[in-house]
């Protein structure tokens, strides 16, 4: 679990004046599920393209088992990639797609066919074995898209937004499947879904504007922004009353962090539940009124907000 299988070393990629990936240095360990978390356009897919060898960096390099990834060493064949968009041959059946891709990776025809049937069964697609890809629903196409990355039994599996566009049933199936890959394979996944990253990934890299902001386990990342729970209170009142309420809440505890976004007051502090009466009292004395309230744990969304000043969905 501690052995580094993939490294990116000062990886930079520019498109004209835009730096899509800036000085990205990472170490990904064998058998872990590593998540790239960031909003759309953060540089996740470009990072993935650089890692899997689809794109050459302007500077820096990617190493797999210490060897640089280029197109001449066949190293990228140890990697399986599930792209964000559905990439299928429209008029081939599910089985034919898998068989063909296996053969392209140099797997024998017999072994390709065996693995194709196995993967179709694992992803509950065996009934669609002989259906052409163009006849499948979007969810089934995405499932097929995912197992196409695995037919040559790669050591490293890269999944670019694997849950994007999935119906709830397929999402559960795909998430279970990704978790089942853990320890058997090294999995790198990109997502802008904090819930997906939190539930699935062993470690997460938060990336924005092409820049790596922080790396760690979900628990470590959440700890970096402080201990305690988050109380979210929707307020009614005029602007000055809301500002007064914010200032009053900040005075509760020097360790507490409070933030006002529109009419939503977020307060992170230890023992939040036991201090709720005091919190409500201070809000009331500021002239504001709570219309809605909830208490939750820190999330990766909070981490991203802390690091960038904006939410993942913005």
């Amino acid at each position, binding site marked *: 679990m501690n052995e580094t299988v993939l490294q990116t070393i000062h990886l930079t990629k520019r498109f004209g004046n835009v730096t899509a990936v800036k000085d990205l240095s990472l170490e990904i360990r064998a058998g872990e599920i590593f998540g790239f978390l960031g909003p759309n356009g953060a540089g996740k897919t470009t990072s993935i393209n650089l890692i899997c060898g*689809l794109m*050459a960096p302007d500077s820096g390099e990617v190493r797999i088992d210490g060897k640089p990834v280029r197109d001449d060493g066949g190293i*990228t064949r140890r990697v399986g990639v599930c792209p964000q968009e559905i990439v*299928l*041959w429209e008029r081939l059946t599910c089985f034919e797609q898998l068989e063909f891709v296996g053969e*392209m*990776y*140099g797997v024998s025809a017999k072994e390709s066919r065996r693995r194709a049937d196995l993967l179709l069964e694992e992803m509950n697609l065996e009934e669609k074995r002989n259906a052409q890809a163009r006849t499948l629903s979007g969810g089934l196409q995405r499932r097929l898209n995912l197992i196409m990355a695995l037919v*040559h039994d790669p050591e490293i599996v890269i999944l670019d937004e694997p849950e994007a566009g999935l119906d709830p049933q397929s999402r559960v199936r795909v998430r279970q499947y990704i978790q089942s890959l853990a320890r058997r394979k090294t999995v790198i996944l990109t997502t802008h879904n904090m819930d997906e990253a939190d539930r699935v990934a062993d470690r997460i890299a938060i990336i924005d504007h092409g820049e790596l902001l922080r790396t760690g386990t979900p628990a470590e990342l959440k700890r970096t922004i402080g201990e305690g729970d988050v109380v979210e209170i929707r307020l009614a009142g005029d602007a000055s009353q809301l500002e007064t309420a914010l200032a009053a809440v900040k005075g509760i505890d020097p360790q507490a962090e409070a933030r006002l976004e529109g009419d939503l007051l977020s307060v992170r502090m230890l023992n939040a539940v036991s201090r709720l009466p005091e919190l409500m009292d201070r809000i009331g004395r500021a002239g504001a009124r709570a219309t809605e309230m909830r208490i939750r744990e820190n999330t990766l969304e909070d981490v991203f907000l802390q690091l960038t000043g904006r939410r993942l969905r913005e």
Partner: protein
Amino acid sequence: MKLISVARKSLIELLREPMLLGMVLITPLAFLLLDGFAYQTPHLRTLSVLAAVNTPAGNGAVGYLRRLTYPDGRPIFKLETATNLDTAEAALRERTAAALLILDPGAAGAPLAYTIRGDPLFLDYLDAASILDSRLTEYQNDQNGIHPPVRVVEHPIAAATFRTRTDFIVYAPGLLVFAILLLVPQTALLLGREIRTRTIRRLRLSGVSSVEFLGGIGVSQVVMAAVQIVLISAGLIAFGLDPSRALLPVLLASFLVAVSAIGAGLIVGCFIQNDSQAVNLGSTVTMLQVFASGSFFPVPAPALFRLFGHEIGWNDILPATHAMTALQQSILYGANLGQIGFRLGAAAALSLIFFLIGAFLFQWKVMRYSAAA
């Protein structure tokens, strides 16, 4: 093995796409049938001529012309008497008659004077006028006891094949080249689709080489071309091609055109991003090759230099030009493989060069490590 897998996959895709399959197999056959029925008339055909006879001496001339025949016994002219000049002029304009022959008394002792009227833009008129003029001069000389000092004997180089030749066979080489060159847009389409659907990225990641991938596409297209050539050749035979004389050269030259078309399709595939661009650019390249190779009509191509005794013009850079020449030689004049060896060799060499250029460009623009993903 990867090459075979790519070929098998491409053929499966083609067989499951009736429109694409139809474009390659049905379109050439449709052209063949249309042209075959349209030009089924013999190349040396009986010409319809109206005769206005204004002198008794003219009746003899008309009788003489009516007795003229081609070597196979068919009459050269179908001569009808024109009773009304206005009606005759209308027939010329409607092209129901090739020419109007007006026979008048000759001046200064000559028994006959003749006028030939018709539309110079009508090919039949040119044929009719030429034959009428020469044969009437010959007739007058005979009548006057004049024996010309020089006797002209015509001996057509394709005389041996005249009996079976029709206009269709004259156009057959060009039709064949055009039909096979339809493989250019189809080959480009297969590549354009891989680029549009981004499946080419899967192939790049797998480490398949350009030669394996393009070779596989090429093999699938060669299989299609083989079916296409067999169908077209069967059609040509049905419409008058003598298989005992020309079949093997036709098959060889057709195959070489197919290889060059596939190579051109691969080159086109390097400059497109989707299916419609493939069809548009591929069709343009097809038409340019068809015209430049002289498949539709002769193209002025002054000799730039000589190679192995053959004049080489600007359009000889195209394999289709050599294949077209080889097809003309074999279909029209019954040339054997030895006689068209240079053209076949040149077409083969240029086809290989086209394919290699296509493979190199595809590797450089699409498949290489630093190519745009």
